[in-house]
């Protein structure tokens, strides 16, 4: 009896606390929700949403637009993920070259070359790089390449330039004593960097790399310029096929937002796990 009473009392108190704490939020919600509902209702009527959704549904399900979307999703993921991996490899190599002290001429030349590379890829829009690469360089080199493969290559080269700067910061954040100790036991510079310094640098820059990945995913929306099928081109196709733009483009925006939100959540999780492992050590 008394236990039950106690429970009710506690629930009652909890509700009271909740209202006390959140009464402002609740009031704001109460004021905001009705106008929004009215607005949606108005928009729904005005733009004849029901009909538009029906058209989109026909395009997407009946005419098997979803198959195209699956292919688009696959290509977007492929370009972003493989591009990022290529970028990490290239970025690491460039960063490792750039942090060598220029004590002789070979190193100075290497610095100039990778410096020019970074300037080139950071100094031009990715669309321009895609167009020049696909329609100019590939034909000149007489290479036949699938548009998706070309996009992967160019996105990899491009993100390599950006990641090299991130990686350089990461390498500089590692205690120089680590490299010294590795060199002192007789390991060459490259091995010391690869086994000791770069792993610690990557750990330091993982969150930044996550953000770079998000940027990369969003940038892939331009691959349609060279004829690769991705999320964007899929919805462009669906839209122009039915002369009905609103629903496809809204759905497209939502899909990108969901993808980015998922990656951002993963990055957060990773950050928290790293912080925890740091504390435990």
């Amino acid at each position, binding site marked *: 009896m008394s236990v039950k009473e106690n429970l009710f009392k506690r629930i009652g108190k909890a509700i009271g606390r909740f209202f006390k704490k959140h009464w402002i939020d609740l009031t704001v919600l109460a004021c905001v929700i009705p106008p929004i509902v009215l607005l949606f209702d108005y928009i729904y009527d005005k733009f004849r949403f029901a009909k538009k959704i029906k058209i989109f549904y026909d395009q997407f399900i009946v005419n098997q637009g979803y198959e195209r979307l699956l292919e688009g999703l696959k290509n977007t993921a492929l370009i972003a993920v493989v591009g990022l991996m290529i970028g990490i490899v290239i970025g690491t190599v460039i960063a490792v070259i750039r942090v060598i002290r220029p004590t002789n001429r070979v190193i100075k030349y290497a610095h100039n070359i990778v410096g020019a590379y970074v300037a080139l890829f950071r100094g031009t829009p990715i669309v321009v790089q895609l167009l020049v690469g696909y329609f100019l360089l590939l034909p000149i080199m007489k290479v036949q390449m699938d548009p998706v493969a070309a996009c992967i290559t160019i996105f990899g080269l491009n993100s390599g330039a950006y990641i090299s700067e991130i990686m350089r910061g990461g390498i500089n954040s590692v*205690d120089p004593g*680590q490299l010294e100790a590795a060199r*002192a036991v*007789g390991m060459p510079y490259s091995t010391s960097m690869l086994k*000791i310094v770069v792993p610690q640098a990557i750990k330091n820059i993982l969150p930044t790399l996550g953000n770079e990945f998000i940027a990369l995913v969003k940038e892939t929306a331009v691959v349609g310029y060279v004829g690769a099928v991705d999320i964007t081109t899929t919805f462009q196709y669906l839209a122009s096929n039915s002369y009905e733009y609103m629903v496809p483009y809204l759905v497209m925006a939502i899909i990108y937002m969901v993808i980015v939100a998922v990656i951002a959540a993963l990055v957060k999780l990773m950050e928290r796990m790293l912080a925890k492992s740091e504390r435990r050590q």
Partner: protein
Amino acid sequence: MKEGSNKKIGEPIISVRGLTKTYGKLDVLRGIDEDIREGEQVAIIGPSGSGKSTFLRCLNCMEDPTSGSIIFEGVDIADRRVNINTHREHIGMVFQQFNLFNNKKVIDNITLAPIYVGKRNLRRAKLKNALRTIANLFRKNKKELIPITKTKKEIVLEARERAMELLRRIGLEEKATVYPSTLSGGQKQRIAIVRALAMNPKVILFDEPTSALDPEMVGEVLDLMRALANEGMTMVIVTHEMGFAREAADRILFIDEGQIKEQGTPAEVFDNPKNPRLQEFLSKVL
């Protein structure tokens, strides 16, 4: 030589000739000639900024000498054309800040270099043998192949066994699988010393090995160094621990303004200093 010890001091292992080092316009080392002999323990003392660390770091070319030569086992390692890495394998180094590899467990800190070197030598031997086999096809008197005694697996196992043995020696075998950040300063430094030992070095260089330690941990590190000294390990030690230098070293070098201003046995240097700068220095630190 210390009384009561029966150790022998042998031929020079490292001979320094005409060593100078400048950073830009700053002359840090101004002409040093010195021999480090097998089995001796040399302590380096001197005021802050006098070039002690720079001298020590020139001995394994962590700093490239501006001029002069460092003869190690008959090779001038100051010459930029020699492969410094194969020589550094035989010169251990222990740092003030320990510098254990943060991304490696304790045992991997110790085995990293032995495994790297073992595998590299194996690779080199195999390559040479392959070339010799081909060349032998055209030779009348065939050249013998290099005997390959160990597989990669055996190299790894051996290195791990040796590392555990060393960890047992310093009583830290239960720390084998933890990361360095969980260790105390004294533990870190003893593991750093053991990491150098794992390469079976001909000589170990110490740069103020106890300066970054809490006072209560200095003893355990000095004890380990003393034990090494008694086993006849050749050691060069930059230190501010005058007591340790006096009792454990065979020879003291006093470096000031980039030169060795005075050197001798601990008794000579501490009890009967001749150089006025040394007298002044000792009056401050003793």
